[in-house]
């Protein structure tokens, strides 16, 4: 399942919405039902770059941006049918980065350089 990152103006200077295939995440939680949410207040979003080089995709390294690595609040809202949260390097409570997945087996890693990106790219 794709994740959507919606950086604020302090990241890209605009209201870009970038959709990427998240990094491999196989350490999955228990099931959430549709409409339920999971939020973190201090997600280490920079871990995203381990799977997808956002600098190549949008022309900026999010992990290098002040304020992006710490104190980043992220909320996952489960669609109808529910699903699971899967962590990249640990189970969701402890993971540096989580993704939603309809199954509890997680997602495969993206192929570097072939990550689908929606939305405007920054000019370089």
């Amino acid at each position, binding site marked *: 399942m794709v994740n959507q990152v919606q950086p604020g103006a302090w990241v890209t200077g605009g209201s870009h919405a970038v959709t990427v295939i998240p990094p491999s995440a196989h350490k999955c939680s*228990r099931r959430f039902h549709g*409409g*339920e949410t999971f939020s973190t207040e201090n997600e280490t979003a920079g871990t995203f770059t381990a799977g997808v080089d956002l600098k190549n995709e949008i022309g900026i390294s999010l992990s290098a941006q002040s304020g992006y690595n710490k104190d980043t609040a992220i909320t996952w*809202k489960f669609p109808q049918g529910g699903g699971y949260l899967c962590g990249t390097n640990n189970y969701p409570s402890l993971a540096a980065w989580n993704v939603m997945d309809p199954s*509890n087996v997680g997602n495969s890693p993206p192929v570097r350089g072939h990550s689908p990106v929606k939305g405007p790219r920054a000019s370089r």
Partner: protein
Amino acid sequence: MGGLACGLALLLTTACTSSSTLPTSGPFGSTIPNSGMICAHTRPGGTAYSGFEDFPNRGGKAIIDKVVLAHARHLRLVAAWVLPISNSREGVGVGGGYPTASSVASDAPGTRWDLRQPIRGAVVRHTHGQESINLVIVAKPSGKVGTSTAVDLYYEAAGTRYLLHFPYGFTVRVGRTC
């Protein structure tokens, strides 16, 4: 009157001190560094449950005293259990109402709901390998939304009392979505 006030003050001081000074690193693990919120929705007058968290027991037999919703606002804990699970794919999820044998079987096949124990006095034995203990709480909001900032589990092992702090709050919202 003055003596009564002093006695009350002493009791309050003791209560505050006793909970805040408990060791938070014990056989059930330590406080995790991340924090956040889990939200479930329910119908008016209903409850919701979270079986999101689990923990191992790397020590010997331990006995759970209680679970507390930290800084609860318009949210009341109405039930709590622990149940052993054999791996991370088992365990009760998050949902509206009360967990039932059928909902648990549907959401997490293999989970033994029949092995649950009420939280107070629950006996937790040593866990091996992938085994762990799933904590399940049920809460009821008194308004449109009830919130808490964390979940605290108090237990005793080998003569020492511990506090296991889960810094993920539980929110229950009345409606069709969170």
